[in-house]
Protein backbone atom coordinates (compact mmCIF):
# COMPACT_ATOMS: atom_id res chain seq x y z
CA UNK A 1 0.00 0.00 0.00
CA UNK A 2 1.44 3.34 -0.95
CA UNK A 3 2.57 5.32 2.02
CA UNK A 4 3.28 8.98 1.77
CA UNK A 5 3.63 11.80 4.18
CA UNK A 6 -0.06 11.58 4.95
CA UNK A 7 0.03 8.05 6.34
CA UNK A 8 -2.98 8.59 8.57
CA UNK A 9 -5.08 9.65 5.67
CA UNK A 10 -4.35 6.45 3.80
CA UNK A 11 -5.35 4.09 6.58
CA UNK A 12 -8.51 6.01 7.37
CA UNK A 13 -9.34 5.68 3.71
CA UNK A 14 -8.92 1.95 3.90
CA UNK A 15 -11.54 1.78 6.64
CA UNK A 16 -14.00 3.85 4.69
CA UNK A 17 -13.17 1.98 1.55
CA UNK A 18 -13.87 -1.35 3.19
CA UNK A 19 -17.30 -0.30 4.29
CA UNK A 20 -17.99 1.04 0.86
CA UNK A 21 -16.65 -2.15 -0.62
CA UNK A 22 -18.91 -4.29 1.51
CA UNK A 23 -22.06 -2.25 1.42
CA UNK A 24 -21.36 -1.56 -2.18
CA UNK A 25 -20.40 -5.13 -2.85
CA UNK A 26 -23.56 -7.05 -2.36
CA UNK A 27 -26.04 -4.98 -4.28
CA UNK A 28 -23.36 -4.50 -6.89
CA UNK A 29 -23.54 -5.72 -10.41
CA UNK A 30 -19.83 -6.27 -10.91
CA UNK A 31 -20.32 -9.21 -8.66
CA UNK A 32 -23.70 -10.58 -9.61
CA UNK A 33 -23.72 -13.96 -7.96
CA UNK A 34 -22.88 -15.76 -11.15
CA UNK A 35 -20.84 -18.25 -9.24
CA UNK A 36 -23.63 -19.13 -6.84
CA UNK A 37 -25.69 -21.64 -8.79
CA UNK A 38 -26.50 -23.66 -5.72
CA UNK A 39 -29.16 -21.47 -4.21
CA UNK A 40 -31.01 -20.60 -7.42
CA UNK A 41 -30.78 -24.22 -8.55
CA UNK A 42 -32.21 -25.48 -5.30
CA UNK A 43 -34.96 -22.89 -5.47
CA UNK A 44 -35.88 -24.00 -8.99
CA UNK A 45 -36.10 -27.62 -7.86
CA UNK A 46 -38.22 -26.62 -4.92
CA UNK A 47 -40.62 -24.69 -7.13
CA UNK A 48 -40.79 -27.69 -9.47
CA UNK A 49 -41.83 -29.87 -6.58
CA UNK A 50 -44.44 -27.48 -5.23
CA UNK A 51 -47.44 -28.83 -7.21
CA UNK A 52 -47.18 -31.90 -5.04
CA UNK A 53 -48.21 -29.95 -2.00
CA UNK A 54 -50.05 -26.89 -3.22
CA UNK A 55 -53.68 -26.43 -4.16
CA UNK A 56 -54.50 -25.39 -7.73
CA UNK A 57 -55.22 -21.86 -6.53
CA UNK A 58 -51.83 -21.65 -4.85
CA UNK A 59 -50.15 -23.06 -7.95
CA UNK A 60 -51.86 -20.32 -9.87
CA UNK A 61 -50.31 -17.74 -7.57
CA UNK A 62 -46.90 -19.33 -8.03
CA UNK A 63 -47.25 -19.13 -11.81
CA UNK A 64 -48.26 -15.50 -11.54
CA UNK A 65 -45.27 -14.75 -9.33
CA UNK A 66 -42.93 -16.57 -11.69
CA UNK A 67 -44.16 -14.55 -14.65
CA UNK A 68 -43.65 -11.32 -12.76
CA UNK A 69 -40.23 -12.55 -11.74
CA UNK A 70 -39.31 -12.82 -15.41
CA UNK A 71 -40.65 -9.31 -15.90
CA UNK A 72 -38.64 -8.04 -12.94
CA UNK A 73 -35.48 -9.80 -14.10
CA UNK A 74 -35.77 -8.12 -17.47
CA UNK A 75 -35.95 -4.73 -15.81
CA UNK A 76 -33.07 -5.63 -13.51
CA UNK A 77 -30.88 -5.92 -16.60
CA UNK A 78 -31.78 -2.37 -17.49
CA UNK A 79 -31.89 -0.66 -14.11
CA UNK A 80 -29.53 -2.71 -12.00
CA UNK A 81 -26.93 -3.74 -14.51
CA UNK A 82 -26.84 -0.77 -16.85
CA UNK A 83 -28.13 1.97 -14.60
CA UNK A 84 -30.96 3.04 -16.90
CA UNK A 85 -34.13 3.77 -14.95
CA UNK A 86 -37.05 3.10 -17.26
CA UNK A 87 -40.56 3.99 -16.19
CA UNK A 88 -42.12 2.56 -19.31
CA UNK A 89 -41.17 -1.09 -19.15
CA UNK A 90 -44.76 -2.28 -19.00
CA UNK A 91 -45.15 -1.34 -22.66
CA UNK A 92 -43.06 -4.36 -23.61
CA UNK A 93 -45.00 -6.65 -21.31
CA UNK A 94 -48.18 -5.42 -22.90
CA UNK A 95 -46.92 -5.70 -26.47
CA UNK A 96 -45.81 -9.27 -25.89
CA UNK A 97 -49.23 -10.05 -24.47
CA UNK A 98 -51.23 -8.33 -27.20
CA UNK A 99 -49.17 -9.82 -30.02
CA UNK A 100 -49.76 -13.25 -28.54
CA UNK A 101 -53.50 -12.78 -28.45
CA UNK A 102 -53.76 -11.18 -31.87
CA UNK A 103 -51.52 -13.73 -33.53
CA UNK A 104 -53.45 -16.57 -31.97
CA UNK A 105 -56.55 -15.50 -33.78
CA UNK A 106 -59.57 -17.74 -33.45
CA UNK A 107 -57.90 -21.09 -33.58
CA UNK A 108 -54.92 -20.65 -31.35
CA UNK A 109 -51.30 -20.67 -32.39
CA UNK A 110 -48.12 -22.61 -32.14
CA UNK A 111 -45.77 -21.64 -29.40
CA UNK A 112 -42.93 -21.97 -31.86
CA UNK A 113 -44.39 -19.08 -33.81
CA UNK A 114 -45.89 -17.02 -31.01
CA UNK A 115 -42.72 -16.88 -28.97
CA UNK A 116 -40.56 -15.18 -31.59
CA UNK A 117 -43.48 -12.96 -32.60
CA UNK A 118 -44.17 -11.74 -29.08
CA UNK A 119 -40.55 -11.22 -28.19
CA UNK A 120 -39.79 -9.81 -31.61
CA UNK A 121 -42.67 -7.37 -31.44
CA UNK A 122 -41.59 -6.14 -28.05
CA UNK A 123 -37.99 -5.92 -29.24
CA UNK A 124 -39.01 -3.93 -32.31
CA UNK A 125 -40.76 -1.32 -30.21
CA UNK A 126 -37.78 -1.34 -27.86
CA UNK A 127 -35.42 -0.49 -30.70
CA UNK A 128 -37.44 2.59 -31.63
CA UNK A 129 -38.13 3.73 -28.08
CA UNK A 130 -34.58 2.98 -27.01
CA UNK A 131 -32.96 4.84 -29.88
CA UNK A 132 -35.03 7.93 -29.12
CA UNK A 133 -34.93 7.75 -25.33
CA UNK A 134 -31.19 7.20 -25.17
CA UNK A 135 -30.70 10.62 -26.67
CA UNK A 136 -31.61 11.82 -23.19
CA UNK A 137 -30.26 11.14 -19.74
CA UNK A 138 -31.26 11.03 -16.11
CA UNK A 139 -34.68 12.37 -15.33
CA UNK A 140 -35.42 13.13 -18.99
CA UNK A 141 -34.87 9.47 -19.76
CA UNK A 142 -37.34 8.49 -17.06
CA UNK A 143 -39.98 10.84 -18.43
CA UNK A 144 -39.45 9.88 -22.04
CA UNK A 145 -39.71 6.15 -21.39
CA UNK A 146 -42.92 6.78 -19.47
CA UNK A 147 -44.28 8.84 -22.34
CA UNK A 148 -43.54 6.18 -24.95
CA UNK A 149 -45.23 3.56 -22.82
CA UNK A 150 -48.23 5.83 -22.59
CA UNK A 151 -48.23 6.12 -26.34
CA UNK A 152 -48.47 2.36 -26.65
CA UNK A 153 -51.20 2.40 -24.04
CA UNK A 154 -53.21 4.82 -26.11
CA UNK A 155 -52.85 2.70 -29.20
CA UNK A 156 -54.31 -0.35 -27.53
CA UNK A 157 -56.86 1.61 -25.55
CA UNK A 158 -58.28 3.92 -28.18
CA UNK A 159 -57.91 2.24 -31.53
CA UNK A 160 -59.97 -0.52 -33.01
CA UNK A 161 -56.82 -2.28 -34.04
CA UNK A 162 -55.76 -2.25 -30.43
CA UNK A 163 -58.98 -3.72 -29.18
CA UNK A 164 -60.31 -0.95 -27.00
CA UNK A 165 -60.55 -0.40 -23.29
CA UNK A 166 -62.09 -3.76 -22.48
CA UNK A 167 -59.22 -5.69 -23.91
CA UNK A 168 -59.39 -8.86 -25.94
CA UNK A 169 -59.75 -12.53 -25.19
CA UNK A 170 -57.41 -15.34 -25.99
CA UNK A 171 -59.80 -17.95 -27.30
CA UNK A 172 -57.44 -20.84 -27.71
CA UNK A 173 -54.25 -21.20 -25.79
CA UNK A 174 -51.03 -21.95 -27.66
CA UNK A 175 -49.71 -25.43 -28.15
CA UNK A 176 -46.47 -26.89 -29.31
CA UNK A 177 -46.77 -29.65 -31.89
CA UNK A 178 -44.40 -31.55 -34.10
CA UNK A 179 -45.63 -33.52 -37.07
CA UNK A 180 -49.19 -33.29 -35.92
CA UNK A 181 -48.49 -34.62 -32.44
CA UNK A 182 -49.18 -32.20 -29.62
CA UNK A 183 -46.24 -32.01 -27.24
CA UNK A 184 -47.38 -29.20 -25.05
CA UNK A 185 -50.80 -27.70 -24.49
CA UNK A 186 -50.59 -24.52 -22.51
CA UNK A 187 -54.28 -24.70 -21.86
CA UNK A 188 -53.54 -27.43 -19.33
CA UNK A 189 -52.44 -26.44 -15.86
CA UNK A 190 -49.36 -28.62 -15.42
CA UNK A 191 -47.78 -27.90 -18.81
CA UNK A 192 -48.27 -24.19 -18.21
CA UNK A 193 -46.73 -24.42 -14.76
CA UNK A 194 -43.59 -26.14 -15.96
CA UNK A 195 -43.31 -24.03 -19.08
CA UNK A 196 -43.37 -20.87 -16.99
CA UNK A 197 -40.84 -22.36 -14.57
CA UNK A 198 -38.59 -23.32 -17.46
CA UNK A 199 -38.89 -19.81 -18.88
CA UNK A 200 -37.94 -18.34 -15.51
CA UNK A 201 -34.92 -20.59 -15.17
CA UNK A 202 -33.86 -19.85 -18.74
CA UNK A 203 -34.23 -16.10 -18.26
CA UNK A 204 -32.30 -16.15 -15.00
CA UNK A 205 -29.53 -18.24 -16.50
CA UNK A 206 -29.34 -16.14 -19.63
CA UNK A 207 -29.08 -12.86 -17.78
CA UNK A 208 -26.52 -14.30 -15.36
CA UNK A 209 -24.50 -15.47 -18.34
CA UNK A 210 -24.81 -12.10 -19.98
CA UNK A 211 -23.65 -10.27 -16.89
CA UNK A 212 -20.53 -12.38 -16.54
CA UNK A 213 -19.55 -11.85 -20.16
CA UNK A 214 -17.57 -9.01 -21.68
CA UNK A 215 -20.82 -7.39 -22.71
CA UNK A 216 -22.11 -7.54 -19.15
CA UNK A 217 -18.93 -6.12 -17.76
CA UNK A 218 -19.11 -3.30 -20.25
CA UNK A 219 -22.65 -2.57 -19.08
CA UNK A 220 -21.42 -2.49 -15.51
CA UNK A 221 -18.69 -0.08 -16.51
CA UNK A 222 -21.25 2.14 -18.19
CA UNK A 223 -23.33 2.10 -15.05
CA UNK A 224 -20.46 2.99 -12.74
CA UNK A 225 -18.72 5.54 -14.91
CA UNK A 226 -19.87 6.07 -18.46
CA UNK A 227 -17.42 8.88 -19.05
CA UNK A 228 -14.48 6.63 -18.30
CA UNK A 229 -15.84 4.00 -20.66
CA UNK A 230 -16.01 6.51 -23.49
CA UNK A 231 -12.52 7.73 -22.69
CA UNK A 232 -11.27 4.17 -22.95
CA UNK A 233 -12.81 3.78 -26.39
CA UNK A 234 -16.24 2.21 -25.88
CA UNK A 235 -19.10 3.64 -27.93
CA UNK A 236 -21.55 3.41 -25.09
CA UNK A 237 -24.85 4.06 -26.86
CA UNK A 238 -24.99 0.78 -28.80
CA UNK A 239 -24.37 -1.11 -25.57
CA UNK A 240 -27.18 0.70 -23.79
CA UNK A 241 -29.50 0.16 -26.72
CA UNK A 242 -28.68 -3.53 -26.78
CA UNK A 243 -29.48 -3.82 -23.07
CA UNK A 244 -32.72 -1.92 -23.64
CA UNK A 245 -33.80 -4.22 -26.47
CA UNK A 246 -32.88 -7.43 -24.66
CA UNK A 247 -34.78 -6.23 -21.60
CA UNK A 248 -37.74 -5.38 -23.80
CA UNK A 249 -37.71 -8.78 -25.49
CA UNK A 250 -37.63 -10.60 -22.15
CA UNK A 251 -40.50 -8.47 -20.92
CA UNK A 252 -42.32 -9.55 -24.07
CA UNK A 253 -41.75 -13.15 -23.03
CA UNK A 254 -43.36 -12.41 -19.69
CA UNK A 255 -46.22 -10.77 -21.57
CA UNK A 256 -46.82 -13.85 -23.68
CA UNK A 257 -46.95 -16.05 -20.60
CA UNK A 258 -49.26 -13.64 -18.83
CA UNK A 259 -51.65 -13.57 -21.77
CA UNK A 260 -51.68 -17.34 -21.86
CA UNK A 261 -52.24 -17.63 -18.14
CA UNK A 262 -55.01 -15.06 -17.91
CA UNK A 263 -56.60 -15.90 -21.21
CA UNK A 264 -57.15 -12.21 -21.86
CA UNK A 265 -55.31 -8.94 -22.19
CA UNK A 266 -56.33 -5.41 -21.43
CA UNK A 267 -54.73 -1.99 -21.80
CA UNK A 268 -53.92 -1.73 -18.10
CA UNK A 269 -51.00 -4.08 -18.76
CA UNK A 270 -49.27 -1.11 -20.38
CA UNK A 271 -50.26 1.41 -17.76
CA UNK A 272 -47.72 3.24 -15.71
CA UNK A 273 -49.06 1.54 -12.63
CA UNK A 274 -47.65 -1.63 -14.08
CA UNK A 275 -44.37 0.11 -14.92
CA UNK A 276 -44.17 1.52 -11.42
CA UNK A 277 -44.96 -1.86 -9.91
CA UNK A 278 -42.16 -3.68 -11.69
CA UNK A 279 -39.73 -0.94 -10.71
CA UNK A 280 -40.84 -1.46 -7.14
CA UNK A 281 -40.27 -5.17 -7.41
CA UNK A 282 -36.72 -4.57 -8.51
CA UNK A 283 -36.00 -2.18 -5.69
CA UNK A 284 -37.80 -4.29 -3.11
CA UNK A 285 -35.42 -7.11 -3.67
CA UNK A 286 -32.43 -4.88 -4.04
CA UNK A 287 -30.91 -3.34 -7.09
CA UNK A 288 -27.98 -5.21 -8.45
CA UNK A 289 -29.04 -8.70 -7.66
CA UNK A 290 -30.82 -11.25 -9.82
CA UNK A 291 -32.04 -13.07 -6.75
CA UNK A 292 -33.27 -9.74 -5.50
CA UNK A 293 -35.41 -9.28 -8.57
CA UNK A 294 -37.07 -12.65 -8.03
CA UNK A 295 -37.46 -12.04 -4.31
CA UNK A 296 -38.86 -8.59 -5.00
CA UNK A 297 -41.41 -9.93 -7.45
CA UNK A 298 -42.48 -12.55 -4.94
CA UNK A 299 -42.78 -10.12 -2.05
CA UNK A 300 -44.57 -7.46 -4.02
CA UNK A 301 -47.12 -9.84 -5.48
CA UNK A 302 -47.77 -11.48 -2.14
CA UNK A 303 -47.99 -8.12 -0.45
CA UNK A 304 -50.54 -6.91 -2.96
CA UNK A 305 -52.56 -10.12 -2.47
CA UNK A 306 -52.35 -9.58 1.27
CA UNK A 307 -53.49 -5.98 1.17
CA UNK A 308 -56.38 -6.86 -1.12
CA UNK A 309 -57.47 -9.80 0.96
CA UNK A 310 -60.73 -9.13 2.69
CA UNK A 311 -60.37 -12.28 4.71
CA UNK A 312 -57.35 -10.86 6.49
CA UNK A 313 -57.92 -7.16 6.53
CA UNK A 314 -61.64 -6.72 6.38
CA UNK A 315 -62.84 -3.40 5.07
CA UNK A 316 -59.32 -2.05 4.87
CA UNK A 317 -58.84 -4.33 1.88
CA UNK A 318 -60.79 -2.07 -0.43
CA UNK A 319 -58.35 0.72 0.32
CA UNK A 320 -55.32 -1.37 -0.49
CA UNK A 321 -53.74 1.45 -2.46
CA UNK A 322 -53.37 3.40 0.75
CA UNK A 323 -51.78 0.59 2.70
CA UNK A 324 -49.58 -0.33 -0.24
CA UNK A 325 -48.53 3.28 -0.79
CA UNK A 326 -47.62 3.82 2.84
CA UNK A 327 -45.74 0.54 2.95
CA UNK A 328 -43.72 1.49 -0.10
CA UNK A 329 -42.82 4.85 1.38
CA UNK A 330 -41.74 3.29 4.64
CA UNK A 331 -39.79 0.64 2.81
CA UNK A 332 -37.94 2.83 0.35
CA UNK A 333 -37.16 5.35 3.04
CA UNK A 334 -35.83 2.78 5.48
CA UNK A 335 -34.24 0.24 3.15
CA UNK A 336 -32.96 1.97 0.05
CA UNK A 337 -30.97 -1.11 -0.84
CA UNK A 338 -33.89 -3.47 -0.58
CA UNK A 339 -34.13 -6.79 1.14
CA UNK A 340 -30.80 -8.04 -0.14
CA UNK A 341 -29.19 -4.91 1.24
CA UNK A 342 -30.65 -5.78 4.59
CA UNK A 343 -28.48 -8.86 4.60
CA UNK A 344 -25.41 -6.81 3.83
CA UNK A 345 -26.14 -4.34 6.57
CA UNK A 346 -26.57 -7.11 9.12
CA UNK A 347 -23.31 -8.70 8.05
CA UNK A 348 -21.35 -5.48 8.42
CA UNK A 349 -22.82 -4.78 11.79
CA UNK A 350 -21.60 -8.03 13.32
CA UNK A 351 -18.24 -7.79 15.10
CA UNK A 352 -15.48 -8.82 12.79
CA UNK A 353 -17.77 -8.25 9.86
CA UNK A 354 -15.59 -5.53 8.47
CA UNK A 355 -12.39 -7.47 8.88
CA UNK A 356 -13.83 -10.45 7.09
CA UNK A 357 -15.00 -8.33 4.22
CA UNK A 358 -11.64 -6.54 4.13
CA UNK A 359 -9.62 -6.77 0.98
CA UNK A 360 -11.74 -9.40 -0.70
CA UNK A 361 -10.89 -9.83 -4.33
CA UNK A 362 -13.75 -8.62 -6.43
CA UNK A 363 -14.09 -11.51 -8.86
Amino acid at each position, binding site marked *: *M*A*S*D*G*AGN*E*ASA*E*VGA*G*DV*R*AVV*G*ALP*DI*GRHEAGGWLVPGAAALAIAALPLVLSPYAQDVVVRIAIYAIFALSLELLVGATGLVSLGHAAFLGIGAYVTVRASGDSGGSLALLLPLAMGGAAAYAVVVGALSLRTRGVYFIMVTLAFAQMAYFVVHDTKAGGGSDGIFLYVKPTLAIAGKTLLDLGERMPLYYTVLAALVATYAFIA*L*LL*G*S*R*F*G*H*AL*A*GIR*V*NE*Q*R*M*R*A*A*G*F*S*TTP*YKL*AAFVIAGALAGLAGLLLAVKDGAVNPELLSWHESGAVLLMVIFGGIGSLRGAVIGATCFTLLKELFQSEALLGSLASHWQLTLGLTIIAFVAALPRGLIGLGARLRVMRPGGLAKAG*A*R*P*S*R
Partner: protein
Amino acid sequence: MSALPAEASGPRAAEASASLLEAIGLGKRFRGLAAVDEVSLDLCVGEIHAVIGTNGAGKSTLINLLSGELAPSAGSIRFGGDDVTRWSQPRRARAGLGRSYQRTTIFAEFSVLENCRLAAQAKEPRPWLVWERAADDRRGIATATRALAAAGLDGDADRIASTLSHGAKRQLEIAMCLATGPRALLLDEPLAGMGAEETGRMLTLLSGLKATHAILLVEHDMDAVFRVADRITVMVNGQVIASDVPERIRNDRAVREAYLGDDH
Protein backbone atom coordinates in the same frame (compact mmCIF):
# COMPACT_ATOMS: atom_id res chain seq x y z
CA MET B 1 10.35 20.58 -3.42
CA SER B 2 13.93 19.45 -3.21
CA ALA B 3 12.90 15.85 -2.69
CA LEU B 4 12.23 15.46 -6.41
CA PRO B 5 14.69 13.21 -8.22
CA ALA B 6 16.66 15.18 -10.76
CA GLU B 7 15.09 14.70 -14.14
CA ALA B 8 17.11 15.64 -17.12
CA SER B 9 14.93 17.40 -19.64
CA GLY B 10 15.72 15.53 -22.80
CA PRO B 11 16.82 17.29 -25.94
CA ARG B 12 14.02 18.20 -28.27
CA ALA B 13 13.48 14.95 -30.08
CA ALA B 14 10.47 16.58 -31.62
CA GLU B 15 12.38 18.26 -34.38
CA ALA B 16 13.25 15.08 -36.16
CA SER B 17 9.96 13.14 -35.95
CA ALA B 18 6.62 14.25 -37.38
CA SER B 19 3.95 15.35 -34.94
CA LEU B 20 1.49 12.72 -33.86
CA LEU B 21 -1.15 15.12 -32.63
CA GLU B 22 -1.71 18.59 -34.02
CA ALA B 23 -4.17 21.29 -33.06
CA ILE B 24 -4.54 24.02 -35.67
CA GLY B 25 -6.26 27.27 -34.80
CA LEU B 26 -8.47 25.61 -32.23
CA GLY B 27 -11.20 27.75 -30.75
CA LYS B 28 -14.18 27.23 -28.47
CA ARG B 29 -16.82 29.81 -27.64
CA PHE B 30 -19.41 29.48 -24.92
CA ARG B 31 -22.19 32.01 -25.50
CA GLY B 32 -19.82 34.65 -26.77
CA LEU B 33 -17.04 33.95 -24.31
CA ALA B 34 -13.96 32.46 -25.95
CA ALA B 35 -12.61 29.82 -23.61
CA VAL B 36 -10.03 28.81 -26.15
CA ASP B 37 -8.91 31.15 -28.92
CA GLU B 38 -6.68 30.38 -31.90
CA VAL B 39 -4.65 27.73 -30.13
CA SER B 40 -2.19 25.74 -32.15
CA LEU B 41 0.17 23.17 -30.78
CA ASP B 42 1.62 19.83 -31.65
CA LEU B 43 2.74 16.71 -29.89
CA CYS B 44 5.40 14.22 -30.93
CA VAL B 45 6.42 10.79 -29.75
CA GLY B 46 9.40 11.00 -27.46
CA GLU B 47 8.49 14.23 -25.73
CA ILE B 48 6.54 15.54 -22.80
CA HIS B 49 4.78 18.73 -23.84
CA ALA B 50 3.44 20.60 -20.85
CA VAL B 51 0.64 23.15 -20.96
CA ILE B 52 0.54 25.61 -18.10
CA GLY B 53 -1.53 28.63 -17.31
CA THR B 54 -3.48 30.31 -14.56
CA ASN B 55 -6.95 29.20 -13.59
CA GLY B 56 -9.41 29.97 -16.31
CA ALA B 57 -6.69 30.02 -18.93
CA GLY B 58 -8.53 27.42 -20.95
CA LYS B 59 -6.37 24.38 -20.24
CA SER B 60 -9.26 22.10 -19.32
CA THR B 61 -11.25 23.21 -22.34
CA LEU B 62 -8.22 22.53 -24.50
CA ILE B 63 -7.89 18.99 -23.25
CA ASN B 64 -11.60 18.42 -23.69
CA LEU B 65 -11.34 19.63 -27.27
CA LEU B 66 -8.37 17.39 -28.00
CA SER B 67 -9.93 14.31 -26.42
CA GLY B 68 -13.23 14.81 -28.19
CA GLU B 69 -15.49 15.63 -25.30
CA LEU B 70 -16.16 19.09 -26.69
CA ALA B 71 -16.67 20.06 -30.30
CA PRO B 72 -14.57 23.04 -31.38
CA SER B 73 -16.14 26.25 -32.64
CA ALA B 74 -13.18 26.76 -34.92
CA GLY B 75 -10.02 25.06 -36.03
CA SER B 76 -9.10 21.46 -36.58
CA ILE B 77 -7.27 18.58 -34.99
CA ARG B 78 -5.09 16.02 -36.72
CA PHE B 79 -4.05 12.75 -35.16
CA GLY B 80 -1.72 10.28 -36.78
CA GLY B 81 -2.39 11.74 -40.19
CA ASP B 82 -6.20 11.76 -39.90
CA ASP B 83 -8.43 14.77 -39.47
CA VAL B 84 -10.21 13.85 -36.26
CA THR B 85 -12.04 17.12 -35.65
CA ARG B 86 -15.44 15.47 -36.15
CA TRP B 87 -14.56 12.20 -34.46
CA SER B 88 -16.27 11.24 -31.21
CA GLN B 89 -14.22 10.63 -28.10
CA PRO B 90 -14.54 6.83 -28.20
CA ARG B 91 -13.38 6.84 -31.79
CA ARG B 92 -10.32 8.92 -30.99
CA ALA B 93 -9.57 6.71 -28.03
CA ARG B 94 -9.70 3.62 -30.20
CA ALA B 95 -7.34 5.32 -32.62
CA GLY B 96 -4.82 5.70 -29.82
CA LEU B 97 -5.58 8.98 -28.10
CA GLY B 98 -5.84 8.28 -24.39
CA ARG B 99 -6.66 10.67 -21.61
CA SER B 100 -6.66 10.84 -17.86
CA TYR B 101 -8.84 13.08 -15.77
CA GLN B 102 -8.15 15.67 -13.15
CA ARG B 103 -10.86 14.29 -10.90
CA THR B 104 -10.14 10.61 -10.42
CA THR B 105 -12.39 8.72 -12.80
CA ILE B 106 -11.80 5.12 -11.95
CA PHE B 107 -14.35 2.38 -11.37
CA ALA B 108 -14.31 2.56 -7.60
CA GLU B 109 -16.37 -0.59 -7.01
CA PHE B 110 -14.29 -2.89 -9.16
CA SER B 111 -10.92 -4.41 -8.42
CA VAL B 112 -7.79 -2.68 -9.64
CA LEU B 113 -7.20 -5.43 -12.17
CA GLU B 114 -10.75 -5.27 -13.46
CA ASN B 115 -10.40 -1.51 -13.90
CA CYS B 116 -7.56 -2.04 -16.33
CA ARG B 117 -8.98 -5.15 -17.94
CA LEU B 118 -12.18 -3.31 -18.77
CA ALA B 119 -10.20 -0.45 -20.25
CA ALA B 120 -8.22 -2.96 -22.28
CA GLN B 121 -11.43 -4.55 -23.50
CA ALA B 122 -12.17 -1.39 -25.44
CA LYS B 123 -9.59 -2.27 -28.04
CA GLU B 124 -11.15 -5.64 -28.73
CA PRO B 125 -14.66 -5.43 -27.35
CA ARG B 126 -16.34 -8.33 -29.22
CA PRO B 127 -19.50 -8.01 -27.14
CA TRP B 128 -21.33 -10.74 -29.02
CA LEU B 129 -19.26 -13.44 -27.32
CA VAL B 130 -21.74 -13.81 -24.49
CA TRP B 131 -20.74 -17.35 -23.56
CA GLU B 132 -17.17 -16.28 -22.80
CA ARG B 133 -16.53 -15.17 -19.23
CA ALA B 134 -14.90 -11.80 -18.87
CA ALA B 135 -12.82 -13.34 -16.12
CA ASP B 136 -11.29 -15.63 -18.77
CA ASP B 137 -10.26 -12.76 -20.98
CA ARG B 138 -6.59 -13.74 -21.08
CA ARG B 139 -5.48 -11.09 -23.53
CA GLY B 140 -7.21 -8.39 -21.53
CA ILE B 141 -5.85 -9.60 -18.23
CA ALA B 142 -2.33 -9.78 -19.64
CA THR B 143 -2.58 -6.25 -21.02
CA ALA B 144 -3.99 -5.05 -17.73
CA THR B 145 -1.23 -6.71 -15.74
CA ARG B 146 1.41 -5.08 -17.93
CA ALA B 147 -0.24 -1.68 -17.56
CA LEU B 148 -0.41 -2.06 -13.79
CA ALA B 149 3.25 -3.03 -13.67
CA ALA B 150 4.21 -0.04 -15.79
CA ALA B 151 2.26 2.22 -13.45
CA GLY B 152 3.80 0.64 -10.37
CA LEU B 153 0.68 -1.04 -9.05
CA ASP B 154 1.62 -4.71 -9.47
CA GLY B 155 0.92 -5.74 -5.93
CA ASP B 156 -2.51 -4.22 -5.79
CA ALA B 157 -4.28 -6.07 -8.59
CA ASP B 158 -6.87 -7.71 -6.38
CA ARG B 159 -7.71 -4.75 -4.22
CA ILE B 160 -10.91 -2.90 -4.66
CA ALA B 161 -10.10 0.40 -6.29
CA SER B 162 -11.84 2.54 -3.71
CA THR B 163 -9.45 1.30 -1.04
CA LEU B 164 -6.37 2.72 -2.74
CA SER B 165 -4.63 5.80 -1.43
CA HIS B 166 -5.11 8.98 -3.39
CA GLY B 167 -1.73 8.73 -5.07
CA ALA B 168 -2.31 5.11 -6.00
CA LYS B 169 -5.66 6.04 -7.51
CA ARG B 170 -3.92 8.57 -9.74
CA GLN B 171 -1.50 5.84 -10.74
CA LEU B 172 -4.46 3.62 -11.57
CA GLU B 173 -5.86 6.41 -13.68
CA ILE B 174 -2.64 6.32 -15.72
CA ALA B 175 -2.63 2.53 -15.80
CA MET B 176 -6.14 2.50 -17.26
CA CYS B 177 -4.97 4.94 -19.88
CA LEU B 178 -2.05 2.65 -20.73
CA ALA B 179 -4.25 -0.42 -20.87
CA THR B 180 -5.95 0.92 -23.97
CA GLY B 181 -2.64 0.90 -25.81
CA PRO B 182 -2.53 4.57 -26.69
CA ARG B 183 0.04 6.32 -28.81
CA ALA B 184 -0.63 9.71 -27.30
CA LEU B 185 -1.55 10.54 -23.72
CA LEU B 186 -3.46 13.62 -22.64
CA LEU B 187 -2.89 13.94 -18.91
CA ASP B 188 -5.03 16.39 -16.99
CA GLU B 189 -3.23 17.32 -13.76
CA PRO B 190 -2.07 13.81 -12.88
CA LEU B 191 -0.18 15.16 -9.90
CA ALA B 192 -3.21 16.78 -8.29
CA GLY B 193 -3.24 16.23 -4.55
CA MET B 194 -0.04 14.20 -4.45
CA GLY B 195 2.70 14.38 -1.87
CA ALA B 196 6.40 14.63 -2.66
CA GLU B 197 7.20 10.95 -2.86
CA GLU B 198 4.20 10.12 -5.02
CA THR B 199 4.97 13.00 -7.34
CA GLY B 200 8.49 11.71 -7.78
CA ARG B 201 7.22 8.28 -8.65
CA MET B 202 4.72 9.64 -11.15
CA LEU B 203 7.36 11.76 -12.86
CA THR B 204 9.68 8.78 -13.17
CA LEU B 205 6.81 6.87 -14.70
CA LEU B 206 6.08 9.62 -17.21
CA SER B 207 9.70 9.98 -18.19
CA GLY B 208 9.84 6.28 -18.77
CA LEU B 209 6.79 6.42 -20.99
CA LYS B 210 7.86 9.25 -23.19
CA ALA B 211 10.19 7.21 -25.34
CA THR B 212 7.27 5.32 -26.82
CA HIS B 213 4.41 7.78 -26.38
CA ALA B 214 3.57 11.40 -27.05
CA ILE B 215 2.55 13.03 -23.78
CA LEU B 216 0.61 16.23 -23.26
CA LEU B 217 0.70 17.28 -19.64
CA VAL B 218 -1.56 19.91 -18.15
CA GLU B 219 -0.20 20.74 -14.73
CA HIS B 220 -0.10 23.30 -11.97
CA ASP B 221 2.95 21.96 -10.18
CA MET B 222 5.62 24.25 -11.64
CA ASP B 223 8.64 22.45 -10.23
CA ALA B 224 7.48 19.17 -11.67
CA VAL B 225 6.76 20.75 -15.02
CA PHE B 226 10.16 22.35 -15.31
CA ARG B 227 11.84 19.13 -14.28
CA VAL B 228 10.21 16.83 -16.75
CA ALA B 229 8.89 18.78 -19.74
CA ASP B 230 10.66 18.95 -23.06
CA ARG B 231 8.47 21.79 -24.24
CA ILE B 232 6.14 24.13 -22.42
CA THR B 233 3.18 26.03 -23.81
CA VAL B 234 1.79 28.86 -21.73
CA MET B 235 -1.85 29.88 -21.98
CA VAL B 236 -3.51 33.01 -20.70
CA ASN B 237 -7.18 33.81 -21.24
CA GLY B 238 -7.60 31.08 -23.79
CA GLN B 239 -4.65 32.06 -25.93
CA VAL B 240 -1.12 30.81 -26.25
CA ILE B 241 1.38 33.46 -25.20
CA ALA B 242 4.49 31.36 -25.47
CA SER B 243 5.59 27.90 -26.54
CA ASP B 244 9.22 26.84 -26.23
CA VAL B 245 11.81 24.85 -24.32
CA PRO B 246 11.71 25.27 -20.54
CA GLU B 247 14.83 27.41 -20.25
CA ARG B 248 13.49 30.01 -22.63
CA ILE B 249 10.02 29.94 -21.07
CA ARG B 250 11.57 30.55 -17.69
CA ASN B 251 13.17 33.72 -18.98
CA ASP B 252 10.35 34.89 -21.26
CA ARG B 253 9.20 38.31 -20.12
CA ALA B 254 5.59 37.98 -21.19
CA VAL B 255 5.30 34.72 -19.33
CA ARG B 256 6.86 36.10 -16.20
CA GLU B 257 4.55 39.08 -16.25
CA ALA B 258 1.44 37.09 -16.89
CA TYR B 259 2.03 34.08 -14.84
CA LEU B 260 5.18 33.18 -13.03
CA GLY B 261 5.64 36.30 -11.00
CA ASP B 262 8.88 36.90 -9.12
CA ASP B 263 9.43 33.44 -7.67
CA HIS B 264 11.32 31.99 -10.56
